[in-house]
């Protein structure tokens, strides 16, 4: 138990380091700009003419603090962290005066839901088929499935999403083309609404899965083709352990473990894919919110989403990291 506590402690430090570096890079990037975005943004809001002077002042102040048009860089940096700690990015410019945190809070569950489901599915599908392909390396059907998976793997998310969109909403219109649920439904825990959410999530998640399975497939196949030559597999095969048990408990079980670490290492890349997929399918997650914020020149929203994304992705990695030793009995002693 004590060694696990030490392990968790180390992971907490790494988590803190990731957030620190990520947020610092974010801060530095925002200081590269040659123009004063605060007055630029305030001017933009004022031209719409619907806002009260107080809320404009609120916007100006939060932008000033976030953007760091303070006295010196160090002070600005500290203020930026304080804002972040309160998750207070001020009001959004494009949806003025809704606070940025509220917009993100509304969008985040969609992204988390989409990513969790598609990541878990592609992890299992890719690993199981990859493991079988590694074990039965001469099976023709597995080889063909493998070739398709590996062929899709290098294709960027955007293109797969786009092709699916054209095929299933344009050439063969059987699935909804955009949004998170049908427009005429009120959000709530009703069967109609949940069914609609499910229907709308099919294309985005399928495109994420199609691109995602390839790398799990390849990694697992390579791991399994190494593990089948390990002594304990040879021994169990000599002992006549039934094949199903051999493949699952001996080969796959051992190959799954490094793939869990692999999952932690690729969450960031998977998130990149989600941004663009949401955009293609008009899915109401934070990826689409980010793109819209850029187009609307909504500074505080872009900054807010970037910061939250960094924290959320690192948190996901952190969670996988601390669960891992509970799954792998060997880690307790070595880590």
């Amino acid at each position, binding site marked *: 138990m004590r060694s696990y506590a030490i392990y968790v402690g180390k992971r907490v430090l790494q988590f803190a380091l990731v957030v620190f570096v990520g947020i610092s890079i974010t801060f530095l990037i925002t200081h590269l700009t040659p123009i004063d975005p605060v007055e630029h943004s305030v001017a933009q809001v004022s031209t719409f003419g619907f806002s009260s002077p107080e809320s404009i002042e609120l916007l100006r102040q939060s932008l000033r603090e976030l953007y760091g048009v303070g006295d010196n860089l160090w002070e600005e940096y500290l203020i930026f962290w304080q804002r972040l700690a309160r998750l207070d990015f001020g009001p959004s410019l494009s949806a003025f005066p809704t606070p940025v945190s509220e917009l993100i809070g509304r969008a985040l569950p969609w992204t988390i839901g989409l990513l969790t489901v598609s990541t878990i599915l592609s992890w299992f599908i890719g690993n199981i088929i990859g493991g079988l392909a590694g074990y039965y390396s001469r099976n023709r059907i597995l080889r063909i499935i493998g070739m398709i998976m590996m062929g899709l793997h290098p294709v960027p998310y955007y293109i797969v999403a786009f092709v699916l969109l054209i095929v299933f909403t344009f050439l063969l219109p059987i699935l909804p083309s955009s949004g998170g649920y049908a427009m005429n439904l009120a959000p709530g825990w009703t069967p109609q609404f949940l069914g609609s959410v499910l229907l709308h999530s099919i294309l985005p998640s399928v495109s994420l899965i199609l691109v995602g399975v390839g790398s799990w497939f390849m990694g697992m196949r390579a791991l399994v083709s190494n593990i089948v030559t*390990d*002594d*304990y597999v*040879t*021994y*169990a*095969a*000599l*002992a*006549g*352990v*039934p094949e199903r*048990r051999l493949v699952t*408990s*001996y080969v796959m*079980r*051992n190959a799954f*473990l490094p793939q869990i670490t692999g999952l932690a290492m690729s969450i960031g890349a998977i998130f990149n894919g989600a941004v663009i997929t949401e955009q293609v399918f008009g899915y109401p997650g934070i990826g689409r919110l980010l793109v819209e914020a850029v187009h609307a020149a909504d500074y505080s929203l872009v900054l807010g989403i970037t910061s939250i994304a960094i924290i959320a992705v690192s948190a996901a990695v952190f969670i996988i990291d601390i669960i891992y030793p509970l799954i*792998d*009995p*060997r880690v307790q*002693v070595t880590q």
Partner: protein
Amino acid sequence: MTQISGSPLDENSYVLETRALRAYYRMKYFGIDREVRAVDGISMHVRKNEIYGIAGESSCGKTTFIKAIAAAIRPPLEIVAGHVNYNFINNDLYALPSKERSAIRWRHLSYILQGSMNVLNPVRRIHKTFEDFAFRHMHMGRSEFEQEVKRHLERLRLPAEILRAYPHELSGGMRQRVCIALATLCKPEFIIADEPTTALDVVVQKDVLAMIRETQSEFGSSMIFVTHDLAVHANITDRLGIMYAGRLVEEGRTADVFSNPMHPYTAHLIASLPRIGDIHPRNALTGSPPSLADPPKGCRFHPRCPLAMEICRHENPALTTLAEDHRVACFAASATVQPTSDEKPQHPEALETVR
């Protein structure tokens, strides 16, 4: 079916018999063919209730021979000729359908492998491994089976707590003892032990050897025991076969082989064992073991042999009985040793080297 007709095999006394067994590695890569003749015409048998030792330096084909008699053949290794017969299947092992072959595994034929870290599944508790290996043969309920396993461990003086452990939580010696318990649980007729004590330190080695000897005699199993360590053979085996370059060059009761080695290679191996009080420097053999991909013609030992004669360069000596229960393949040992074919027979049945 290749049922052997007129076999001299006495069902009651022989448990394993191999006849002119040849197992080659055949590889083809980037257009180059390669054939490694790792086991090249071995005929031998193991009697009931005996421990048969196989000795020889590394890459002499010991491990391949083990794989061949255990039906653990996967490409590029192939059985190109010969038979492996067990009395409990009354047939050639390779003539069995694979389903029946896996049904005899562990029930009749079990293994103890080199006691390294990796023989037991690192993410499975020991009791699960017992279940995977033996449960289906015991024909009893799960709790009854667990009781049986515990009784068996007790008999071998092992603590029952190890059943809840993962392999990495046990010491190397304990892991090897677990393997012995695992291999003897079903009381199989035949146990193959491949370098079971090699990775262990000397004190543990002694205990493990004693345990193997005890369980073997208690359950009346026969055993093939492979190690390069002649001292271990002297301690545990009843009969000993010496392998050189894929062939058996001498075989006899262990005591006879040690006291009266008839093959120059055996004589050299035994002479190079350390003795207390002996200060003479050991003579090394010149040259190195031949490549099995391109073995020398004739007797494979002749390029290094101090007694090599003209015939040794061209003809392959047959393994011939020269004393009671003592066979040697060397023209220099006796004039009664006849040449035998060096080539893989077209019809394996047609050629027999057992006399």
